[in-house]
């Protein structure tokens, strides 16, 4: 079975000879021909009448793309492009969240500081695109099935000879006349190169091929899974999370004999008997108001800070019932439902007669309809309220001498 003719090739010894041959080939009107040289020979493009390469345009376009990507990327992530609009309003997923933080006193879009990355990405995009497009687009490689591969011709031109190859696809191709032509221009080792005979792949080799294909696909997807689902979502640093410790509502840790460290097997334990929490000293005058009135004294001094604090606390907790000025006319007392409750005025004779400690007792334990305020108001604040109350009492019922 004779295989289809691909081309006729000839070898030349010197660069001058091949330049000469290339020029003659163009003159003879052949179009589908090629010159193979072990290294780029100067002047060959001109001799072959080749048009200039368009590769630099690709480089330029990709350099610009790299630059624009870098500008937009830095602008989006750090430059706060959306202004005050929150990402929750735009319903952006968390991974599209921007990070507009002022760092080093620079503006959010700090152009000079963004220049290095712009430069690097420009170079990176341009270089990769140049190399990839040169090989894949302009040279149509990789490909190992070309008929010239593995011929004596290729072995010569890859080392020390210069080859001319006129292809059968040329409109004016005729095997005999091409051979004569090549002889005329001084070519040696003139040969016809035929298309390689393609054997149908054997069953075994197909199995091997698909096996390798499956393995590669499996490997790549496993790798992707690991990278994108495990590595990228790895928690930052988990030693504190995974170290031995007790969390609320958990069972007790076990000791080396596999017995719980705490006898009841619970992780949470009651405080030791008699423990007093900070700021929760038990009230020692419970149910003994008179004693409290006699023994407790206000530890706070009269100053602006204490009075301001007292005013604030009074208005939060007391004024609702007792009224802003302590006259018993708070908001609660005006309501229909609270008709039965008449919070007493704090300016009554009885109230004025109460010592600081006695009032303190009322705040802590409550009186009549008033509940205890011990849970809401801290000890310090109770005393500051009393300070403020005294000031109120005096202000409402001011004497002539107070104005001096």
């Amino acid at each position, binding site marked *: 079975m004779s295989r289809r003719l691909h081309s006729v090739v000839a070898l030349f010894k*010197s*660069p*001058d000879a*091949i330049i*000469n041959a290339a020029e003659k080939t163009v003159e003879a009107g052949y179009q589908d021909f*090629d*010159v*193979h040289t*072990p*290294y*780029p020979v100067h*002047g*060959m*493009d001109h*001799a072959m009448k080749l048009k200039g*390469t368009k*590769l*630099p345009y690709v*480089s330029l376009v990709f350099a610009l793309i790299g630059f624009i990507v870098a500008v937009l*990327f*830095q602008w989006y*992530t*750090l430059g706060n492009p959306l202004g005050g609009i929150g990402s929750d309003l735009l319903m952006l997923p968390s*991974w*599209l969240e*921007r*990070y507009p933080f002022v*760092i*080093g006193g620079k503006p959010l879009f700090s152009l000079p*500081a*963004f220049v*290095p*990355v712009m*430069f*690097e990405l420009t*170079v*990176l995009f*341009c*270089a990769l695109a*140049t*190399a990839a497009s*040169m*090989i894949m687009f*302009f*040279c149509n*490689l*990789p*490909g*190992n099935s070309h008929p*010239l*591969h593995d011929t004596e011709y290729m*072995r010569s*031109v*890859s*080392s*020390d000879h210069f*080859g001319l190859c006129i292809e059968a696809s040329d409109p004016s191709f005729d095997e005999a006349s091409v051979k004569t032509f090549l002889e005329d221009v001084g070519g040696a080792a003139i040969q016809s190169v035929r298309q390689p005979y393609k054997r149908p792949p054997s069953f075994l080799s197909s199995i091997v091929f698909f096996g390798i294909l499956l393995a590669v696909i499996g490997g790549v997807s496993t790798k992707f899974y690991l990278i994108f689902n495990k590595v*990228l979502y790895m928690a*930052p*640093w988990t030693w504190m999370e995974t170290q031995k410790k007790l969390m609320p509502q958990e069972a007790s840790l076990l000791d080396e004999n596999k017995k719980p460290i705490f006898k009841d097997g619970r992780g949470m334990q009651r405080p030791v008997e008699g423990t007093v929490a900070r700021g929760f000293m038990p009230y020692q005058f419970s149910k003994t108001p008179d004693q409290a009135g006699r023994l407790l004294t206000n530890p706070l001094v009269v100053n602006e800070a204490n009075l301001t604090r007292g005013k604030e606390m009074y208005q939060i907790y007391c004024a609702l019932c007792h009224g802003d000025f302590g006259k018993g006319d708070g908001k609660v007392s005006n309501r229909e439902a609270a008709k039965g409750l008449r919070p007493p005025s704090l300016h009554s004779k009885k109230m004025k007669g109460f010592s600081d400690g006695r009032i303190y007792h009322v705040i802590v334990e409550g009186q009549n309809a008033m509940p205890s305020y011990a849970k809401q108001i801290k000890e310090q604040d109770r005393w500051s309220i009393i300070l403020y109350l005294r000031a109120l009492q005096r202000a409402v019922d001011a004497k002539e001498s107070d104005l001096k």
Partner: protein
Amino acid sequence: MSIDYSKPLPLVEGTTDLREIDDAIADPMENPRHKEFYTALGIALFCLGIGIVSVLKLLLDGVGVWGNNNTVAWGFPIVNFVFWIGIGHAGTLISAILFLMRQNWRTGIARFAEAMTIFAVITALLFPLLHTGRPWLAHYLLPYPNERALWVNFRSPLLWDVFAVSTYFTVSFVFWYIGLVPDFATMRDRTTAKLKKTIYTIFSLGWRFSNRHWQHYERAYLILAGLCTPLVLSVHSIVSMDFAVSIVPGWHTTIFPPYFVAGAIFSGFAMVITVLLVVRRIYHLEHIITMLHLERMSKVLMATGLMVGYAYSMEFFIAWYSGVEFEQYVFINRAFGTYAWGYWIMVTCNTLIPQVFWFKKCRNSLVVLFIVSITTNIGMWFERFVIVVSSLHRDYLPSSWGDFIPTIWDFSLLLGSFGFFFTGVILFSRFMPVTSMSEVKAVSDCAQPTHHGGDHE
């Protein structure tokens, strides 16, 4: 000896036969010198083993095994990082900048220098990763959408470094590989062993030496060289900004970017000379890597040595001229303080010793070349040591002063990095053409047509 300077000196000595050039370059791959190869590889692997042990120790115990402390937080890892990045720069300079300047003599040494770039940058990258203390979280350095809703800080020089070094590595690698493609194709057609042939076939991408391809190839190579040139200048400038953008006295200087680039080329050339002298000897490439190459490299070495010497003196001048007390103190401390020995080793090795290359005899003596290239490497390592340690250990507040004492693990990792680098270089020289066949052939005598395709005169 009289030389006719009106004609260019031959770049390849003794032969104009193209196949002989192939034979000479392919010889190390086809007839491996087992004794030399395994001895060299054994030594390199031993050092690499020490490096692996020190990395394991580091990962298990944390960065506390190093001598770094609160005052000198950067220590050896950053010294080594800058040192190795600098080594890489010579490769790009030779392959890209000299290419753009049409310095044809570069062809003999370019491939090897580029390979050294690749391995040096990988070696360099190990150090900042290890220095973070948690190298397994290195992907946090990259800006990818993540569940933490964080983006990297593009305003930080350290982040610029991530982009600069990774771009540099990628582009250098592409440049190197594009240069290798025709040589892989030549090797594919030379070899008969089946496995070798398959491997070379795959990596040669089916290159056919077609002139219709060479046309695009040459342009792509030119563009890549044009891209590498500003890139290589930017990389060490950005590395220097890691220092210069801070306000530490001794670092906060505008001379840093050019000073670092000159230093990088200086140290890189020294390393290239050191390794080439050995390779040339073992693989008998004397007529491809000729005395002409070595002499020109020694001239570059001296020129860049003078540049760093200028930078050293200018730093002192500016410290005095600025009138800043802290700046002045740091420089006086550098020359006469705790680490004065490091400073004087640096000055001696980098500015004084290379002056021997004013003499032609020294430029042409392999022994002198080898010794000077070694002392330059030592001097340049100490330059980075001086910059990092002597600036940090005495900054503004005396209460935060402290000394840096390297531990055994600091030194073992440094040794390990040399092991890593040389393992790569040795394997490269065994399995890939150490010199570019197609480029050397293109510059050999009678390789290019005379004008108008006429006969030789």
